[in-house]
Every structure is written in structure tokens, then in C-alpha cells.
């Protein structure tokens, strides 16, 4: 299976563990990927607030570059995933946007013909590989590890392409295929505040602490995320949240790290050392040993 791969800026920075573990998962499942040549920043939510039209053009450059290979494009970062999808939708719906973007791409010698499908890794793993295949390749079963599956906003709203908008289960299914047990998590799609923790710290902390509190209350031993910013927000401010509200100490991992672990990758291959709340004690408690 071959795909184009668009990491996005965060996966080279705070989200490094996401990329490392995801690539490990792809290797283990023989998913062949090719990084989009000279990809640029998609603009994320920030550029969208500055200048929408320019934001679409930025995203479209990547779509045009990816289109060349006639394969689906995997975009792991939730914000990139949303922006790329949104760009496609709006270009189809609004002729004026299509016109502006087409001309802009033309100015740099690119054409976009709306041929590429933007996919999330959860989608690819669930629907192209399948739970059965993954379960069969598990080398380190997760032995009932209690995981709170946190989807966040951007991969389920506003475009529900591969999972239910209000009760998504794709991540749950994949984690359970590896032997983990997902706990009830009513806040699984509630916003973590995004960049608000940096710009309006009090607001950001408020949103973050509910997510942590509820995960702990439901007995989660680890929170599994799909977005670099969510992962950073949830793991970095647990002490601050504890001082102001409810104390928590829950490791926050990318779903791909848990998957990679189960598929037998080594801990440094999957960036476990990059987390701020160590997972080792939890794994030891469950007698989950690395491959």
C-alpha cells in the first residue's frame, strides 16, 4: 500500500514522537509512504484567522504537490488534516475561492485538479489495514491498559469523513485491537483550548483541567491523543492544573506510540522518552515489557 505523507510543522517540533511512532507503525504494517516533496506549512488555524484566501492557497500548494503521485495523502496532524480538507471543500463550493487559488498555484507552476484524497492515519489503519490484521501482528499485548481516547475537535468536526462526529470510535477500536481497554470518556471530543494556553493562559488551563480530571475520574492510566497541540497541552500543565484545580498525573501519549509499542517497536524508536509524564511506571504496573 502506497501513500503520500504530509507531516506538517509540528511533527518536526513538539510532535516529534508522533512522527517517530507513526513511521514505526507504518514500517511494522508495511505501509509504504513518500513524503510530499518540499511541503510547506498548511497555515493551521492561525493563518486562517489572518487571511483565509491565503490560507487556502498555502494548503492547496501541498495538495497540488501530493496529487502528482496519484495516491492518497496521509496527514497525521489534526490541524493540517482539517485545513487540507477544508480547503478542498471550500474550493469545490465557492467558485471565487477556486479562482483565486488556481491563479496563485498557476503563478508558481502548479495545478490542482481535486484528485487527491486526504486521509487521517486512524482512517488508513482502521479501514485500509483493518483491526484483524493489526491484532494478528501484536507482539506486546497491552494487557487491559486503561486508556482514555481523546480525539479532540479537528478530526471529527466539521467534516466527519471516517468516524462519527459525536461518538467517534476509530481510535478505540485500534487500541482495543492491541489489547488495551478504553475507558468511558464523555469529553473525548471537547476542545482542549488549542493555543489559548499560551495566549490566554487562564482560559486554556480551565479547558485542559476538565479533560485531565475526567480522564482520571474514569480510571484512565494513560490518555491517547491524535493532535500534537492536544498532547502538549494535556501533558505540560498537569501540575499547574493541580495547583489551581484538581491534581492529576496521567501520561499523555499519541495513539501511534501505543500502537507501535504493541507492534513491537523499541521505546526510543517511538519517542517514549520525549513525554513529560513518564509512562514506564504504568507499563511496569501492567507488566507490559518492551519487545
Amino acid at each position, binding site marked *: 500500500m502506497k501513500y503520500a505523507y504530509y507531516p506538517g510543522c509540528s511533527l518536526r517540533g513538539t510532535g516529534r514522537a508522533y512522527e517517530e511512532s507513526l513511521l514505526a507503525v507504518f514500517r511494522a504494517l508495511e505501509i509504504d509512504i513518500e513524503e510530499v516533496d518540499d511541503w510547506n506549512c498548511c497555515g493551521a488555524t492561525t493563518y486562517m484567522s489572518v487571511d483565509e484566501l491565503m490560507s487556502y492557497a498555502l494548503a492547496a500548494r501541498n495538495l497540488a504537490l501530493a496529487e502528482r503521485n496519484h495516491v492518497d495523502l496521509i496527514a497525521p496532524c489534526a490541524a493540517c488534516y482539517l485545513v487540507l480538507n477544508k480547503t478542498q471543500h471550500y474550493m469545490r463550493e465557492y467558485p471565487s475561492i477556486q479562482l483565486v487559488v488556481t491563479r496563485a498555484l498557476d503563478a508558481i507552476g502548479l495545478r490542482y485538479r481535486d484528485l487527491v484524497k486526504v486521509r487521517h492515519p486512524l482512517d488508513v489503519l482502521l479501514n485500509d489495514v483493518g483491526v484483524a490484521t493489526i491484532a494478528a501482528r501484536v507482539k506486546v499485548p497491552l494487557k487491559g491498559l486503561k486508556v482514555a481516547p481523546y480525539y479532540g475537535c479537528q478530526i471529527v468536526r466539521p467534516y466527519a469523513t471516517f468516524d462519527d462526529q*459525536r*461518538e467517534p470510535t476509530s481510535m478505540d477500536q485500534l487500541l482495543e485491537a492491541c489489547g488495551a481497554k478504553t475507558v468511558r470518556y*464523555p*469529553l473525548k471530543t471537547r476542545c482542549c483550548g488549542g493555543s489559548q494556553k499560551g495566549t490566554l493562559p487562564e482560559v486554556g488551563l480551565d479547558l485542559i483541567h*476538565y479533560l485531565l480530571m*475526567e480522564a482520571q*475520574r474514569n480510571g484512565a492510566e494513560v490518555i491517547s491523543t491524535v493532535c500534537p497541540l492536544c498532547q502538549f497541552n494535556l501533558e505540560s500543565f498537569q501540575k499547574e492544573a493541580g495547583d489551581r484545580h484538581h491534581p492529576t498525573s496521567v501520561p499523555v501519549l499519541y495513539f501511534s506510540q501505543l500502537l507501535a509499542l504493541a507492534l513491537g517497536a523499541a521505546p526510543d524508536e517511538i519517542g517514549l522518552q520525549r513525554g513529560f509524564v513518564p509512562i514506564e511506571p504504568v507499563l511496569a504496573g501492567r507488566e507490559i515489557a518492551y519487545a
Partner: protein
Amino acid sequence: MYSDCESPRIGVYVCHCGTNIAGTVDVQELAEYAGQLPNVVVSREYKYMCSDPGQALIEEDITDHNLNRVVVASCSPLLHEPTFRRALGRADLNPFLLQMVNIREHVSWVHLDKQAATRKTKDLVRAAVRRVSLHKPLEKRRVEINPNVLVVGGGIAGIHAALNLAEGGKKVYLVEREPTIGGHMAMFDKTFPTLDCAACILTPKMTSVGSHPNIKLWTYSDVTKVDGYVGNYKIQIKHKPRYVNEELCIGCQECITACVYKEGKTPDEFNLGLSKRKPIYLPFPQAVPQKVVIDRDTCIEFKSGKCRKTCIEACGERLAIDFNQTETIDEIEVGAIILATGFKTFSPERNPHYGYGRYPNVYTSMEVERLINASGPTGGEVVLRDGKHPSAVGIIHCIGSRDANTNRWCSKVCCMYSLKLAHLIKEHTGAEVFNFYIDMRTPGKGYEEFYDRLLDEGVHFVRGRVAEVSDWAAHPSEEGKLVIRAEDTLAGFVRRVPVDMVVLAVGLEPQADAQNVRRLFNISCSTEGWFLERHPKLAPVSTFTEGVYIAGACQGPKDIPDSVAQAGAAAAEAQSLIDARFVELEPYTASVLEEECSGCKSCVPLCPYQAIAYAIDKQKAHINEVLCKGCGTCVAACPSGSIRQNFFDDEEIFEEIEGVLAYA
């Protein structure tokens, strides 16, 4: 008075319609122009042709000038064609020797240029004059009407319609799908705005139906085939086996007590699954007919054939239980049909953010009606699933309604019943009650006053569409509660209200099989799925299919008074149809010229009214004039041109076209 070989003597009448036509069209010029057309003997213009003096003009001219054809240039024929036809009739001229020209809706109301408009009317009148010469005299056909009536659906609307007709001396067949009549109303506890006990006002009517000599009540039955046309419907009805002989069962219910199941194990449909029933059961204590029914899917005797059959033992000498009963079929003939098949409630699983099915203490309004009802699953105690009384209850309006994601319409009754439930819940439990609404819709008689009464009772009214019902606690006081999050729009901030019980005011929808039913009876549905009335303002209970009427919630969401009113209206219209004793059919029908029909059968499947049959012996198509509505589809489709239509002969149409094209 006329004959086909006589040359046409045409009278042309141009109406001013006040300034409606005369304001844009030069009626003087038009009348003069018409007067010099070939075969036109007299041409006049008048202020209001449809008035008595206007019509008198036509009648006098027919007599004085020996006219044998008439053209009236005025408004739409939909409005006054019958008027002018009657005028011709009074002057002893066949009414169909008239052609109307629409120079109002088609000219003066849509054009601004007076010169161009007048030119257009000249073209149209010229065409009509040429056409009308070819008109042939036609007769309306009369068909006799069977005086019996079929009422489908035994809810309050069906019951009321049936009783009405029965009292009027008509024989009524009332067919109901469930083992008992009563519909949704039988499940309610009290009704708004009077807080009358629903069963108390319904059961006398149900009993009357059961005992009325003019009503044949068939429950646990379905209509399976409908053939025929207005006044002459042939209906096939299938009766599901109860495995209990209705003639012999006296409803003592000893069999139920004696059943080998010591307690019920099957979710009770009448109590919406809140309690369990045995395989042999009576739907509810006041069921009509008061006959027991056996559910073959859960009865041991049907599953294994090895039951002790204590029910038969308990029945004793009455011998009413019969496990060998089979489905039976009845064929009846009726003249009119009233559909009163009711509604279903919105399924709240479609809105997962309200937690129905996930949180046990989220109920639908219908479920709560059963809890409140003294003969319900909890004996009238409003309790949570664990038996405790709630100390706070949230009632959420507009579930599934007024929402582009589910149903766009307002279900009309939910605000009122939510107020009613608020009152009853408070009365039964003394809990804090919160009603979350968007608008308070209380338009009926006594409804706003009912709202006034509620305002005194201390119910919290929060205006805000609820965003979610969840159990995550943002505050220690919320632990173990269901939290309703909504913006209190009147106050201007978001509120989190912890409650023990949530009641979802589910909206009304068409029945799940509404499309199948409407196809069976050959009527239309609106886009939302409600049965379509002939006119939203002026003909709410009749349909476009003559002889089929609709009443109650199947036509659109409505409360009991409106359902009853519609039922009475439908009964009256059915009665009026039947008492006319015959039906006059418009003669615009098509007929097959047998000599020219090649027997290709292309026309047969095209007819939307199934009026064309293929006569195998003659190998020719034959059109039933009584079913034919004159849509013209078969006429156009026939490859050999052997179907002709009254009033729309090829020659008539070609003359009209030539008339338009031959502009002066």
C-alpha cells in the same frame, strides 16, 4: 340547438375585470378585433363578465343571435370556467362548447407593455376562436356510490370519524393494526389544557365503537389491497391470528393469570418497554375489543409445541383459545375511505448528545406519560430506574424538531405537553422542574392560560436549546447527576443544571410505513412524509384522489382537538359524497380507437391512475373512463396515435396553434 354540420356562430366576450385586465389590455380594441374574425357573430366587452349581468349578456346573445360557440377572454379557467359553463347550460347550449382565454394571469398580470400585451391577447383570442369551432358537445358521466365507508386507523381521529358516520346511518369498517383501538391517546395520562384524564374521555368513545351496530371493528388487521375508484372501492383486509376466538373470549383474563410464565418476560409495547408482559396478554385494561391476544413469537407452545397450555385449562368451557387459528382475509366494497393512521414519535437515539440510551435516567415524554399514569408500569410513581424519586427533573423541548439536522418542522404539541408534564411531575414528586425551551408555542384555546397557570407553579423556565446532557462533573455538586448544559439566553450566560431525570420532548413524525400506506391508497405525501391534503387552507381533509380523505396527525402534527375536528370534517365530506348518491365525472377522459390500436401495451404502465387495462381477448388497450383523470400521458405516448382525449383532440390543438401563429 347545434349540429356538427352547421357553421359555427361564435360569441366573444372580453372582460375588463375592473382594472385588472383593462388597466393593461386595451379591451375595446380587442373586442373590435375579435368582432371581425371569421365566424364571430357578436363581440362584446364588459366590466365583470362573471357577474350576473355579465353572464346574462352571454345567455341573451345565445338566444338572440343563435350562437353555437362561446369564447370568454378573462381570468384563469380554474376560477370561472364552471361559472361560464353553467351560463351556457342555462341557455340550453352544451357547456363544453365554451373556450376560455386567460388574459389576466397570462397577460395583464405579467406584462407591463400595454401595446405588446394587447397584441398578445389578440393572438390568444384568435387561436381560441379557431379552436372553439371544433369543440364537440360532451356529457358528464354519473357513477353510483356505495354507501359504506372504510376508516383506517383506530386512534381518536379514526374513532371519532367512525362514530360520526355510524350515527349518520352509514356502515363503517374500522380497521386497526394493533390488537386494540385507542392509539396514542390511550397511553396519555392527562390531556392539556384541561388536564382531563385521557382514558376517561377516550374509553366511552372506544366502547361505543365496540358496540355500535353500524361499525364493524376489525383490530389486529391490515388493509392489503385497494382497487377501484371513488364510490366503488374494493378493499382486501387481512386479519392476523390472535389465537383467541373473538366470538368466544369474554375478557376474563384467567388465561393470563394461569400462563406458565409466572411473570412477564417480554417488553410491554403499551408501556414502551418499561414493564414486561407475558406471551398471552391484553394490551391494556380498557382495551377494545376486550379480547386477549397471544404473541406467537414469545409463546412456548409455538416455539416448542410442548407447553402445558394452562391457558386453555383456565379458559375451561369457554374454549376460546385456538392455537390453530390462521390468517383470514375479507373483501369489502366501500364508497369512501378515511385514513387516520396517526404519527410516530421521533427516535431520540438520533440525537446522541442528549444521552438517550446511554444514561438510564433519560426518558422520552411518552415513557414519562406511562410512569405518571396510575395504570402504568410504576403505578403512577415517577421514579428513576433504581426506584428512587428524582429531586430535580429537566424537560427538554424541541427534540428532533425545528432542526435542519433531523426534522425541520415544529411538532406543534410538544410545548403544551411539556408544560403538562412539568405540572404533573411536580405534582407527583415535588421535584425542582426545569423546562428548556426555545419558543413557548401555546396558540390554542385555553393554551396561553394553561401556560399562565404553570408560571405560578414554580417551574424554572430557561430559554435555551440544550447543547448536551452529560455526566461529567465540573463541580462537586454535579457528581452522580445528569448535567444539562445550555445558554440561558434571557439571562445571557451559560448554565449547567444538574438533574436526576431528563425528559426529552420528542417531536412527531410520519409513521414509518407512511410511504407504503399512501401508495396503497394512491394518494400523495408531502416532502416530509405527511399525507398531502388537497389544499392547505381550503381542503385540509380531502386528497387529490377522490373518495379518499385524511384526518388527524397523519396529515401533519396536531393535538387532539384538531384531530377530532378533522375527523368530523372528513366524516362530513365522506357523508356528503355518499349522500349525493352519484358522482359526476369530468368528461376530459381519453379513449382508445380500437381499430387503430396495435396492442403494443406502451400505454398500460404509464397511467398514473392505473386506468388502462389490456384486454387479452381483443388484444387492445381499454381505458376505464371512470378512473381516467385526463392527464394526457397515454395520448402523447401512444406510438400509433390511437388514443384520443375529449376536449383535447389533435385537431382542436392544431387549430389553436395555427391561430396563435397566424399573427395579423
